[in-house]
């Protein structure tokens, strides 16, 4: 009886000991346990698998996935963080930058700004393509010059009063439509997600004049897209001497809580769907390669 229980625990639970976590790795592979049929069975998986949405609003989503293994759940998490495509500024053509922020720092900051454009409507840019066409590029112009405010009070020291245009925000970015983009995207839909992100600060006489090319890409640049939060589990119980011996903390192995927070470009449920499709795309790519090899 106890042995059966121990085996069940080994297979199904991750144990939180006082000083460390035990039983982390999945062990239910065929042949490991006598009397268990662990071969992959799609029907059994489909019967046991479920998704429960706990909370959803326009920027964040929390849901549970039950009945799936860590390897696959982690794959989704990794894809959400780094491989869901978005549109972001990649190339910055600087015509004039006399601000105190260096060109490359400014370009780096611009690359981090989330752009409100559905990446599914764009293609990837071909490598080596310098100019960019309407199907893979968005262009933005940023042109700000700071001047002294002639109507400021003589003894004022507040920069908001003394200078005009001394803070460069994302709302100063203007979209420059390429080709037929003006017809496809209605006015005002292609813009940075937030218009109050501070890009740089200027003083009178300084100017920023640049053109940004925004392309579809993946990668750590857009790491703010999702914030899957690992569920924390209180281990406080181990502080209490008497309770320590009686209590055993264990987590169910195949129950995962996902918490996804979007930067605002795509709603979080679309992000998760896209992440799952990305994983399917990877599998399909290798299946096609295998078919190509076997044809010869």
């Amino acid at each position: 009886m106890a042995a059966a229980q121990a085996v069940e625990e080994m297979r199904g639970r991750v144990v939180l000991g006082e000083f460390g976590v035990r039983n982390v790795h999945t062990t239910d592979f065929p042949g490991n346990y006598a009397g268990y049929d662990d071969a992959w069975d799609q029907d059994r998986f489909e019967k046991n698998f479920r998704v429960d949405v706990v909370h959803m609003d326009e920027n964040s989503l929390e849901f549970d996935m039950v009945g799936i293994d860590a390897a696959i759940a982690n794959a989704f998490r990794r894809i959400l963080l780094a491989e869901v495509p978005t549109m972001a500024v990649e190339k910055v053509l600087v015509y004039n930058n006399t601000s105190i922020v260096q060109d490359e720092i400014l370009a780096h900051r611009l690359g981090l700004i989330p752009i409100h454009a559905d990446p599914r409507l764009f293609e990837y840019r071909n490598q080596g393509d310098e100019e960019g066409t309407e199907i893979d590029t968005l262009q933005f112009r940023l042109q700000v010059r700071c001047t002294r405010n002639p109507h400021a009070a003589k003894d004022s020291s507040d920069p908001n009063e003394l200078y005009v245009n001394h803070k460069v925000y994302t709302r100063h970015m203007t979209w420059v439509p390429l080709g037929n983009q003006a017809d496809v995207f209605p006015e005002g839909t292609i813009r940075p997600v937030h218009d109050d992100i501070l890009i740089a600060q200027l003083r009178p006489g300084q100017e920023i004049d640049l053109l940004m090319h925004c392309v579809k890409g993946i990668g750590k640049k857009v790491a703010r897209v999702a914030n899957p939060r690992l569920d924390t589990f209180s281990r406080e119980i181990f502080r209490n001497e008497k309770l320590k011996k009686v209590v055993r903390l264990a987590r169910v192995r195949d129950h995962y809580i996902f918490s996804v927070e979007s930067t605002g470009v795509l709603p979080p449920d679309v992000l998760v769907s896209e992440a799952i499709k990305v994983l399917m795309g990877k599998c399909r790519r290798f299946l096609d390669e295998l078919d190509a090899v076997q044809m010869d």
Partner: protein
Amino acid sequence: MEEDQELERKMSGLKTSMTEGERKTALEMVQAAGTDRHCVTFVLHEEDHTLGNSLRYMIMKNPEVEFCGYTTTHPSESKINLRIQTRGALPAVEPFQRGLNELMNVCQHVLDKFEASIKDYKNQKASRNGSTF
């Protein structure tokens, strides 16, 4: 995972590259000298733990597979070596292909269940608020 002296790089398999925007994918198969097709190392380019671990799990669930493991060769190189050894004489390509197919089916099912859940949640919320979502 394998010693270089033992390996005779018998590149069976094309080094095909498909350009998809900025990503090139290639699949190579490497076999040690003196073995038949039941133990093969696959080199998957432009991949990392994301596909590696999930694919390894699906392949291990196949009772015909005796050994399956993957490693990233070096953090600066974006590729993984995935080794499959089968019991008996089953060619290693078969569990590889089956693992990919099964992983795709899992993803499809997860996607369907997820989208159904989201729809239910939205409907519930709409009926609770009494307004259109």
